[in-house]
Each structure stands twice: as structure tokens, then as C-alpha cells.
């Protein structure tokens, strides 16, 4: 089989048309409708998340403001925690969204390069966002403890602060570990594969 044209003919004769999907099937089986639904689904999910955050923020703010016999310090600390969590969630979703928008219309080399960058940015969610959120939470919680434990003796106050801070740091450590494992399972293999393809693409240059 020296003639490559012959191979090309064989290849192109290999048509999965007759028993495969027919254009008429696109409508009759509702494929188009399903495609539309799938497209709307992602939009709906983001909309629901945004509304949920908005409602939660309003609900919590109202409840904090209407708390009886609570000092300004506690109210401010609660407000700080809520704001930090909301901001954290906003940035998390934005980072997730940006890193999942792949430009399939680029040529392969450009696509591979931008995709590797986007997939690697998933790491930033782990290494940057989570620590910032936990530190904000630690500051807020310590401020609340400072206010609530005024009546307690020094040892109890220090122990409570230390316990709560270590608990949050431990939670962060475990969270980082889980996220790292997920990154290694879900994204690392694709990044490695794309890296390999990129290197091979450039090999014959």
C-alpha cells in the first residue's frame, strides 16, 4: 500500500452515514431542543447561585442589625465575616467561570497554550483565595470572641482564641488537601497530556 491516495479513498469511503444520525433525526428526536436546554441550564445555575447569595446576604444583614443587646464590635465582626464570605464566593465563581471558558475556535496550538494557563489557574483558587478567606474568618471570629469573653479570665480567653484559630487553620489545611487532590485527579492529567501534545507539535520545527 504505497499509494497514499488509495488510503485516502479508503478512509473517506468509511462513512458512518446510513446507520448513523440523519439530519432528520436532529428535529424528530428533539436533539436541538436538548441542546438548547443544556445551554440554558448553565445560565440558570449561575443565576440561582447569584440570587441565593443576594438573599442570604440580605437575610444575614437584617438579622445582625436587629440583634438585641449585641455590641457594635460583634455586629461589625459578623458583618466583616459575611462580607468576606460573600466576596470570597463571588471571586470563586468568577475564577471558576473564567477558567472553564475554553476558546475552541483558536487554532490548536493557541488553544492548548491558553487551556493550560486556564487549567493551572484552578490552583490559584486553592493557593490564594482559600487562605485569604480563612484569615478573614479568623480575624472576624477573634473579634467576636474578644467581645463575648470579656467576663472570663485570661487563661480561658487565650485558650478559646487559640482553639478557634487552630480549628479554622486545621479546616483550611484539610480543605487545601482535598482541593489539591481534586486538582491532581481532575486537571493535572489533562494539563500533562496537553503539555505533551504541545511539545510534540513543536518537535519537528
Amino acid at each position, binding site marked *: *500500500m504505497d499509494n497514499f491516495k488509495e488510503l485516502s479513498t479508503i478512509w*473517506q469511503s468509511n462513512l458512518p452515514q446510513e446507520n448513523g444520525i440523519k439530519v432528520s433525526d436532529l428535529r424528530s428526536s428533539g436533539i436541538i431542543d436538548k*441542546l438548547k436546554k443544556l445551554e440554558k441550564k448553565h445560565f440558570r445555575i449561575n443565576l440561582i447561585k447569584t440570587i441565593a447569595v443576594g438573599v442570604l446576604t440580605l437575610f444575614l444583614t437584617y438579622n445582625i442589625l436587629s440583634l438585641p443587646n449585641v455590641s457594635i464590635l460583634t455586629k461589625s465582626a459578623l458583618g466583616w465575616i459575611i462580607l468576606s464570605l460573600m466576596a470570597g464566593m463571588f471571586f470563586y465563581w468568577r475564577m471558576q467561570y473564567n477558567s472553564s471558558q475554553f476558546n*475552541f*475556535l483558536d487554532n490548536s496550538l493557541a488553544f*492548548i497554550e491558553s487551556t493550560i494557563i486556564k487549567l493551572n489557574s484552578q490552583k490559584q483558587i486553592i493557593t490564594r483565595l482559600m487562605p485569604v478567606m480563612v484569615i478573614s474568618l479568623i480575624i472576624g471570629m477573634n473579634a467576636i470572641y474578644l467581645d463575648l469573653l470579656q467576663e472570663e479570665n485570661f487563661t480561658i480567653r487565650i485558650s478559646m482564641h487559640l482553639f478557634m484559630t487552630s480549628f479554622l487553620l486545621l479546616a483550611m489545611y484539610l480543605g487545601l488537601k482535598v482541593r489539591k487532590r481534586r486538582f491532581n485527579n481532575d486537571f493535572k492529567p*489533562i494539563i500533562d497530556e496537553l503539555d505533551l501534545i504541545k511539545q510534540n*507539535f513543536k518537535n519537528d520545527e
Partner: protein
Amino acid sequence: MSLKMKVSEKEKLFTDLFSKNKGKIYRLCSAYLIDKTEVNDLFQEVMINVWNNIEKFRGESQISTWVYRIAVNTAFMFNKKAKKNKELFLRFSPDSHPLNNKPEETGNEPSNEMIKILHQTINTLANQDKIIISLVLEGLKYEEIGAITGLTLSNVGVKINRIKSVLLKRMKEVQNG
């Protein structure tokens, strides 16, 4: 007309794209993967990405180049283990898979065995080589392959020559047992 493509126009363009390119795209998928279920999943992923990006088609490149770019990039990103969208498209029946496809015999068609050997040999190539050779087998010009892959014209030429010689050598080996 609004900036956003009308739904009916989108459907029409998609249907048109589908009818003109389904065979080519399916062959590209079957060059990239060997397992029938995975080929069908990849084909489905390509079609979903075509649908999602159809409004971005500006006519700056040929529509076939545009579709091939989506198909090739989707193949590179394809994760066999990932949970797939529900079967959106009808499954190709097993008989329609290239390895099982039996064209009506008129005397001029290549044997089913040859198609099988060709597929098996392509499957031994590296991922990016599978894609490039399937584009060559579809009869695409070097310029088109360059536009799809982002490789320079000279690089496309060097690669194709190398892949062709490997493919032919391996096919000979398979044929000679």
C-alpha cells in the same frame, strides 16, 4: 436584525453544518479513539461545542476549518473518565462504526479488512499525529491543516511526511503479518 443570532438561524446553520460535516467529524473522532462508546461520546462533545460556539462564526475562515478547529480542540480536551452529558445524540448503532462498516460491494470498494488495518495503524500513532493524519486522509491542504493546528506550513509538511512514512511502514508490517 439583533446582534444575537436568531434561534431559527442558529438551528438552520447547525443542521447545515451537521449534515455537511458529520461524516468527517465522526471519522476524526474514530481516528483519535478506538473504543466505540468513547468515539460516540467525543462526537457528541464536538457537536455540543459546535452548537455553543455557532454564534461566534464570523465567516473569517472557511466553515470546515472552523468546525475542524472545534473538533480537534475538543478531542485534545476529551476526558474519557469524565461524566458525560446524557445521550443527547442518538447512538451510532454498532454496525455504523468504521471497524464494522460494510460498504455495499460493487467490486471497487476497499475491503473492510483494509479499513480495519488502517484504523488499527492510526491508533498506534501519537495523539497529535492521529489528528494530523486524519486531516490529510480527508484531503485537506497543508494551508488548511496549518490554520487548524497553528503549525507553520513547513512544519506541517515535515510532520506529514514523517507520519505518512511511519503509517505506511506499519501498515506493511501488519499486512505481512
